[in-house]
């Protein structure tokens, strides 16, 4: 949302030299919504109205784009990452080079979850907003699944493919298969719990697995979560493996549940500048090259910077959404 403010300031600055072209620039930028308004020159409003319309349309366009990006485009992004991670993890399992413990690089694949509604999800190490864009993330201060202690895995429930959307459909007794470099582990779900429910005792000798995502009910269900929900499961049928030493003992602020990633702010600023530059470039090109040439060059550029900026904006949002 912080995108809006600079955007509004950009406009007045660029308007004076070419008020007439402004709306067109807006058009070029938000092509999915309005495509063919150019030719109807005769009906165009003029003067101050143009400015108002341009500003309103820009805001609407940006907002609708972000909505479109979050709900429609991010699943593709996540799917692409999952395919890449799956290949990498498969190779590591075959070569027995997948991590078993200690300090694991953030974003490295560590486990594979197969459960009702979740098919071969690759879990990555770390739980920042950015980690969870690639798939479910493993909390770095907990043991890996199958090791002694309770392993915690966070996942999104709305955007980026919503890998843990179906978590709320799990019930006690459901079985989850988790594959790590130490073998395949079968977990049985003990309970699904929400705020105020009794928390289980921390496991020390047994191996536990807790999956966490965001959830809500009523009209907010599925797209506007308002709390975290937990699914606790216990290893069955096998002895837990021992936990190697050297795990991090705390995690950073931005890896905690429902935390956004504040470090994305600075990067976001650069992306906003890029949007401004592209907008200015399109304006300039339209005058020099003509509308069609600008269209061809401008649309990919505009989509690219908008996509990038939206990705950064998503990192500022809570990581479980």
């Amino acid at each position, binding site marked *: 949302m912080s995108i809006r403010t600079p955007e509004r300031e950009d406009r007045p600055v660029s308007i004076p030299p070419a008020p007439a072209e402004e709306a067109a620039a807006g058009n070029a930028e938000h092509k999915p919504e309005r495509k063919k308004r150019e030719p109807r020159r005769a009906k165009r409003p003029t003067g101050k109205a143009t400015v108002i319309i341009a500003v309103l349309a820009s805001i*609407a366009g940006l907002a609708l784009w972000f909505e479109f990006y979050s709900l429609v485009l991010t699943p593709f992004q996540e799917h692409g990452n999952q395919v890449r991670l799956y290949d990498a993890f498969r190779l590591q399992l075959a070569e027995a080079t997948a991590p078993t413990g200690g300090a694991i690089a953030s974003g490295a694949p560590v486990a594979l979850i197969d459960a009702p509604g979740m098919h071969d999800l690759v879990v990555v190490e770390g739980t920042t907003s950015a980690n969870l864009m690639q798939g479910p993330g493993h909390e770095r201060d907990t043991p890996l699944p199958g090791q002694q202690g309770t392993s915690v895995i966070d996942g999104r429930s709305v955007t980026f493919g919503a890998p843990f959307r179906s978590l709320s459909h799990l019930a006690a007794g459901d079985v989850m298969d988790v594959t790590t470099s130490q073998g395949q582990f079968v977990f049985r779900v003990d309970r699904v719990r929400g705020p105020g429910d009794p928390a289980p005792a921390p496991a020390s000798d047994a191996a536990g697995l807790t999956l966490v995502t965001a959830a809500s009910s009523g009209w907010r269900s599925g797209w506007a979560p308002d709390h975290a929900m937990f699914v606790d499961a216990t290893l069955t049928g096998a002895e837990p493996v021992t936990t190697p030493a050297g795990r991090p*003992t705390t995690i950073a602020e931005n890896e*905690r549940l429902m935390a956004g990633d504040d470090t994305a702010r600075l990067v976001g600023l650069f992306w906003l500048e890029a949007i401004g530059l592209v907008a200015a470039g399109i304006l300039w090109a339209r005058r020099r090259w003509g509308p069609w040439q600008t269209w061809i060059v401008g649309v990919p550029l505009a989509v690219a910077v908008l996509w990038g900026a939206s990705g950064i904006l998503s990192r500022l949002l809570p990581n479980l959404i």
Partner: protein
Amino acid sequence: MTRIARRIAVAAIATVLSSLFMVPASGSSSFSKTETITRDHLVNGADNVVDSRTFHVTVDQTTQLRDRQEVNVSWSGAHPTGGLIGDENSGLAAQQEYPVVLMECRGVDSATVPASKRLSPETCWTHTPLERSQSDQAFNFPPYRLDRYASPADRQARVGVPSPFPSDCISFGSGIQHWIPFVAADGTSYAGGPSGCAGVAPDAVTYEGQLQPSNTTYAATDRQGNGSASFVISTSESNASLGCSNTVACSLVVIPIMGISCDPAGANLPPADQPPQDAQDEAMARCSASGQYQPGEFSPGTQNAEDLAVSGLLWWSESNWQNRISVPLTFSQPANICNSVNDSAPLYIYGSELMTQATLQWSPAFCLDPKLFKFTHVQTGEPQAKSLLQNGTIEAAFEGGPPPTPYGRPVVQAPTALTGFAITFVIDDATGHPMHTLRLTPRLLAKLLTESYPAAPIIKGPDAALSNNPLNLAEDPEFRALNPGPPAAGYNTEPAATLFSLSSDSDVIYALTSYINADPDARAWLNGKPDPWGMVVNPAYKGIKLPVDGWPLLDTFASGALYSPDHNPCLAADPVPFLPLVAAPVSTLAQITLNMQFGIANSQIICKNPGDVSQKLGALGRENPGQRFIVGLTTLADAERYQLDTASLLTHTDSGAVDKFSDATGRTFASPTDASLRAAAKMLEPNGRAGSWVLPYDQLRTASGGEGAYPGTMLVSTAIPTKGLPTKDAQRYAKFLRFAVTQGQRSGLGNGELPPGYLPLTSSDGMGSLAQYTQLAADAVEAQKGSTVSVVTLKTSTPGGGSPGGSSNPPPGGGSTGGPTTGSTGGSVPPGPSTTPNGPEPVLVVPAAGTTLAFVPGLGGLVAPSVLALGVFFALAAGGAWYFGRPKVSR
């Protein structure tokens, strides 16, 4: 336990031993007694005295005993021992000739108590079946049937054999049998028999090594008739079958074995029990035998080579038994008393093992006071406890240092105890006697931890990286320069090549590695610079970043010869790197303490059941006295409680001290004493960001006064949130904190007092501000308004905006239903085996007191609907503006 007795004990400690830190619990309750012991045969109706001695025994402490405490027993005037066995506590040691047998028996020797409270061989504890059963299939008159002092009933062919005869014993059952059943505290009688075929007590074993070592001691007497041994007291906490406690009287029984006084004729016996004429000579020869071994001669280890008549196996025979000296013992309140006091839901505090000894003494003061409550210390690694506290899973944690990133919630870290870690050792010097002082440098500790000693010749040869390093610590010239005394060889080399340490994450490892990291010599060596004698770091650890919470095992060297089936079938079947097996860390400090007390080497290098499908690597096991060399990491309070020897650690090197030293000149070492802990406490610095006091390890070496400060010092704090706890719990935690810094800081061994190993947090010890902080913290915890207390200014600040640390995490969910979800105390002692055969104190696994937190996403959760609404609204607005704003003249 009377108040006066306690005062006397405290006064004695205060006056006699005030300057010493390592004090035995009391000096005022020793015991000594002298008696004449003889061996006299009855030959043709006349006494034939073959040996008579004046036996004198002293025991240094007999009252207020606690579980696993060691008492020292020394004697003079006993018959010198032959056929020596290294491990005096093993069942095999009973085969020595003329040992002095020390055993713990239920009951007392007194004519004034009812028979059920008197001791007899049947209430004396032994660990293995052979120690209380004899049988002979070949000869009908073994020495115990000729014992002139035994009753006619005891000289029958079959004694103590239950009827009907137990079916499991059929294969052992023929011939002469003499079994001494064991009567457990609950009245159950276990007949025992050969190999325990008729059943043994739950705490006994049918073969050695199943449980912790026995306390029954077959001690050796030297050629002058003198000897000493330390005897480990067992209470009902570690031996429920024997069942000694503050309500069940027990005795330490000392039996100097003199041999059987023989009566070959058996004139007063029924004819069936009299040796026939043709057997009398052989029976007398066996019974009057005086030993196969010279005094002090070691047994080759073969079975039954000794003369049974003078061996420890016949301790129960009346000739020996009548010579006993029984020492009445009294015990202090059991540490697990709270388990059986009441069923109310306890208050849980998770975390540091550094606090175990303190909470053992504190918890009875709480649970026995009807106005207070029950609290339970659940021992976990500190990093885990801190993480659980951060997540809201638990309500309070003992920590050995602040978390690396500050808590994301309002939490006070109230100083609770000043203690530390200890490097303990069991090392015998060149004369075979235990050493009591040891000097260690951070570099030596780094060498032990980094698997840089090759440990075994089979590694030292092939592993090029380590081939120039000394085999183990004992051979290291740096160690030998500082510690003259131990021979360089003659040990099991593997345990001497490692520091027996923790596999789990712990603040103790963090403190230890901080100390190592702050030493320039150790750091340079870790970075690859060889020490002055040429030893280098294991390349797997070169440049390792310290400090760490958990010590990683990084060595991966695999030697071909090591994995050949001839060498070790287990390793051949499952080739894993060797040095991590030597290190063999364990997950609790309590386990290390246990191993150090009994001198058990944990290196997992012995192939058990080789060739069998069940073959697996096991621990090296108990080392032989006289040849022990183990160094381990324990808590200071455990070391005090179990009287383990602690090493002095390097604190200061003079600028003129030589690098390649040959003695300790120019180097200062600090051992853990009250004074050295006090010196370290003076150096604690408040750190506002961390919210706690921390020890500046780099200044220990440089600051004035630092050379006297014990580097293992650690401040234990109790971390408790000041917002979100249920009111009742908050009030209890506040009470606990106030107790901990007032009454709980009085030194002593009674309920609610601070045991040795902790320095009281008082202003006289220079820690007044720490105690003051805890008082303020208690107020903040009780109020539950989210306030914090500054460690720098000692001022409480109640939040106007934002919690410290800038967290966006909400406080725990407002539900006031908190408190444990199940009321089970998990502590009722089941009948049968004791609850803790292996561990000293039970690590209670209990339900946490937490509820699931809400973790609300705030406005972030509404992004999708609100952005959509925004887009639609502005789109409509733009459309409207376009519609109404267009020129109307176009047509």
